[in-house]
């Protein structure tokens, strides 16, 4: 195959991210410096983000049979990179007082981001697997980064074992699918499934097992059991990475897979996904009700949010792709903001993160702006107007109505009503009477530091997207699979 400068341009974001990872590794070997590592990572990620411009000029373009760079891939690459950038910034704030080696976290995060970039642009099962493993394996290390903390170590091991099980399912599913369709490209599988007139058990089994593998990564019910423990145990910036960059990339590939191949496989897949969606929405929201730990609560809420997203995936026509883009963007922004506040509250490092809800009692009267940010994020997650989350939820409901998925919409409304309860509980806690004994608090000058500035920017974006979403919608309208 001819490899021209166009191909090079299209791959530029991935190449830059990977070389940044190598550069950071070398820099660490040369001299351990938290600041240098941080600046290298940030510069690399920004450069990768900039290189999306030439990449998009080259798009749509297939680079080898594994990777297809189109505007869809471009959008999700941007999303992954921005989320990683935010997590890196948060990690910088978090690691200031970290007792162990601080620099490797950035390395792992960059590697994982590279995996995400592969994942969102792949059109081939091999690419999917490579991307997914590249995305998840560094996360094992990141989750267990504060390994001297019992919870963190437990979370790391739990995540590793369950993620490996998920990957095994995925791999087995791929093998079955290959056995049936003799093709590993998404389009090839789709064509073979469409042409097969007889119901083929092997292919269905393969798709089902792949779905289980991906559902593990997306923590959909009933494959969600790892989520709360891992979210609680992992250091806050890592949890932020898990909910944002990692989930987005996996959902993007699921969307591409679903749209390009087995969507034609008939109604049973949609039925299966509907069951997953209903279970995720209800179980996620109901279990979140009883949590007294903010990270666990957000973990359960993320299960529910991905249940909402499945509604749009099932609809899969009309504005569905667009709606998923909007929802993922708004969800990432709001959850990054929420975990950002937790991160800032947890610094400087004191063993456990500030994740118990009671530690946030009366925060408003001490840190009004930080509280305003967290309140905004909670409202956004609940989908209240003036915040980005409302636009996301509005879009999902629009798509649901368009596809006439009344039962799923009913579940969504019910789930949202339940969700309001626990988001409000968090908000009320923030405004309650001041708590006297303080174990955790944000630094006084948090607003002048990188993490704080980024957090305020996220809050600004959340508000802006809620009031004037047109630019985002316009951007997404132009992005589609294959162009």
């Amino acid at each position, binding site marked *: 195959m001819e490899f021209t400068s166009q191909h090079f341009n299209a791959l530029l974001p991935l190449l830059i991210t990977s070389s940044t990872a190598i550069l950071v590794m070398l820099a660490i070997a040369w001299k351990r410096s938290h600041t240098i590592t941080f600046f290298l990572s940030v510069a690399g990620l920004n450069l990768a983000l900039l290189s999306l411009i030439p990449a998009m000029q080259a798009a749509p373009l297939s680079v080898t049979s594994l990777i297809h760079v189109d505007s869809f891939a471009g959008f999700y690459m941007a999303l992954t990179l921005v989320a990683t950038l935010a997590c890196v910034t948060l990690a910088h704030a978090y690691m200031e007082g970290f007792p162990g080696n601080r620099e490797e976290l950035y390395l792992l995060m960059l590697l994982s981001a590279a995996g995400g970039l592969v994942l969102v642009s792949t059109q081939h099962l091999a690419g999917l697997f490579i991307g997914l493993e590249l995305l998840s394996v560094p996360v094992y290390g990141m989750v267990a980064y504060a390994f001297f903390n019992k919870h963190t170590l437990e979370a790391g091991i739990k995540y590793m074992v369950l993620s490996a099980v998920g990957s095994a399912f995925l791999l087995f599913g791929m093998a079955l699918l290959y056995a049936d369709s003799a093709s590993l490209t998404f389009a090839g599988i789709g064509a073979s499934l469409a042409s097969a007139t007889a119901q083929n058990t092997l292919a269905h089994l393969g798709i089902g097992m792949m779905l289980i593998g991906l559902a593990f990564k997306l923590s959909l019910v009933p494959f969600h059991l790892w989520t709360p423990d891992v979210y609680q145990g992992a250091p806050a910036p890592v949890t932020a990475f898990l909910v944002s960059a990692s989930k987005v990339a996996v959902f993007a590939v699921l969307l591409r897979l679903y749209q390009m191949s087995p969507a034609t496989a008939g109604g049973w897949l949609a039925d299966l996904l509907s069951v997953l969606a209903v279970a995720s929405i209800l179980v996620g929201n109901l279990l979140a009700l009883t949590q007294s730990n903010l990270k666990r609560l957000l973990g359960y809420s993320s299960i529910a949010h991905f249940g909402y997203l499945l509604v749009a995936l099932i609809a899969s026509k009309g504005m569905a792709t667009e709606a998923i883009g909007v929802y993922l963007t708004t969800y990432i922004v709001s959850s990054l903001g929420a975990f950002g506040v937790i991160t800032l509250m947890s610094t400087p490092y004191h063993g456990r993160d500030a994740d118990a809800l009671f530690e946030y009692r009366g925060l408003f009267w001490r840190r009004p702006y930080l509280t305003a940010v967290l309140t905004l994020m909670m*409202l956004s997650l609940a989908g209240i107007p003036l915040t980005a989350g409302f636009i996301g939820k509005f879009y999902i409901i*629009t798509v649901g*109505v368009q596809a006439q998925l009344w039962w799923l919409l009913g579940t969504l409304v019910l789930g949202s*009503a339940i969700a309001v309860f626990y988001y409000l509980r968090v908000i009320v806690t923030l405004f309650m009477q001041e708590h006297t004994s303080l174990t955790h608090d944000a630094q006084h000058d948090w607003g002048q530091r990188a993490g704080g500035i980024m957090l305020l920017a996220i809050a600004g974006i959340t508000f802006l997207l809620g009031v004037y979403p047109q630019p985002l*919608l316009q951007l997404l309208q132009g992005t589609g699979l294959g162009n």
Partner: protein
Amino acid sequence: MILPWLILIPFIGGLICWRAERFGEAPTRLVALLSMSLVLGLSIWLWFTGDFQLAPAPGADQAWALEFRSSWIPRLGISFHLAMDGLSLLMIMLTGLLGILSVLCSWGEIQMRIGFFHLNLMWILGGVIGVFLAMDLFLFFFFWEMMLVPMFFLIALWGHSSSDGKKTRIYAATKFFIYTQASGLIMLVAILALVFANYHNTGVFTFDYSSLLKAKLAPELEYVLMLGFFIAFAVKLPIVPLHSWLPDAHAQAPTAGSVDLAGILLKTAAYGLLRFALPLFPNASAEFAPIAMTLGLIGIFYGAILSFAQTDIKRLVAYSSVSHMGFILIGIYAGSQLALQGVVIQMLAHGLSAAALFILCGQLYERLHTRDMREMGGIWARMPYLPALSLFFAAASLGLPGTGNFIGEFLILLGTFQAAPWITAIATSGLVFASVYSLIMIHRAYFGPPRAEHALAGPDARELTMVLGLAVLIIILGVYPQPVLDTTAASMHGVQQWLGAALSQLVMAR
């Protein structure tokens, strides 16, 4: 440009209040007072200068007294479309007036975090004005949901827990929020289904009110969509099976919260029915009218009986609102111009009288530190002015001639009689119940043996001005309602044509 400013003034004023707290208490309250006075002033000015003969009506192109449109989210056919007719204007005047009163009545009551308190108060009022002006269904929903959050804060942070300590203010606030949020989402689904139905017919994706008025809907679909809207409004109005958030929210809210809740938030639901549910779905509404009227009837009696049984004075007034809203519901679905005009008067009069009663309850609470009527009694002798004023507003609430409430109820009953004589007859007997619970409130709280001997401080000039002002307005509304009727005549005529035509079609079909 004046319409967006009506919405922006409270929002900006609220932000200034929040920041003005550092300069002290008085500037904060003054900023809030000033911004609401500005809103009231602007709306009065509009009343004198505007031509309110223009109002939406079936068939004709939509004409408004004032209109503002600007592009917002063209991707989804959503524009920032505001418009005003006589009905919106009166509601905004009421909002402005009660806004001023809620600032005034919290002058002594709220001493903590006044900046944030006024931020919330102003944002509720801004959201409500937005609801009254929005002519784009997305925008309407946007404001509809937006006003919940500050109201939640108002109840959750500055409310009172119930006397037995069982129901906390946070419980009440959360209940209020979940009820309205869930029902709101049902309305959102209905709005979207309507938009898509219109899209299938015309190929235009729009949320604009005047375009959607022309949507052709299949009868079954129309009925289901109408129910979606009705449920959202029924929760807010409230209509009986969906009312249980109201007494809790009222009882636990601070006085300003109760005033806003009873005075204007409930009116947004009636406004929504008049503006959206009836004109958008006239045939389904006509079909639904007997059920709605029956629900109204149940509300009248249920509210009245529960009101009678309360020992908490604010819960008593809250349940009386449920009863009054029953009349409004009956009037809305009667389909006659007379009844609809009565609904407008009743909305205004109830806004004023319920606000006054809640303010009086608040003043009583500030002096006695209880809302339990079993601990009151004999106050008539211990306190000047306040008991007499309470008696006046209780009389207004039971619909004594000479007060606006009488005009409202009388017109509603008169207008409904032709359409539904039996319902009217039964509803009329609800007025007897109204006198029972109103008078029992006065009796329990103010008469009887005094609980303590020492005299209580009478109302000061601020408190007296607020309540006396309301009393004067209620009397004016009661003896000379014509200007108000003229203002809304065109709007109500339009609504009447929509529903009236559908009702007569229904009669023909049978």
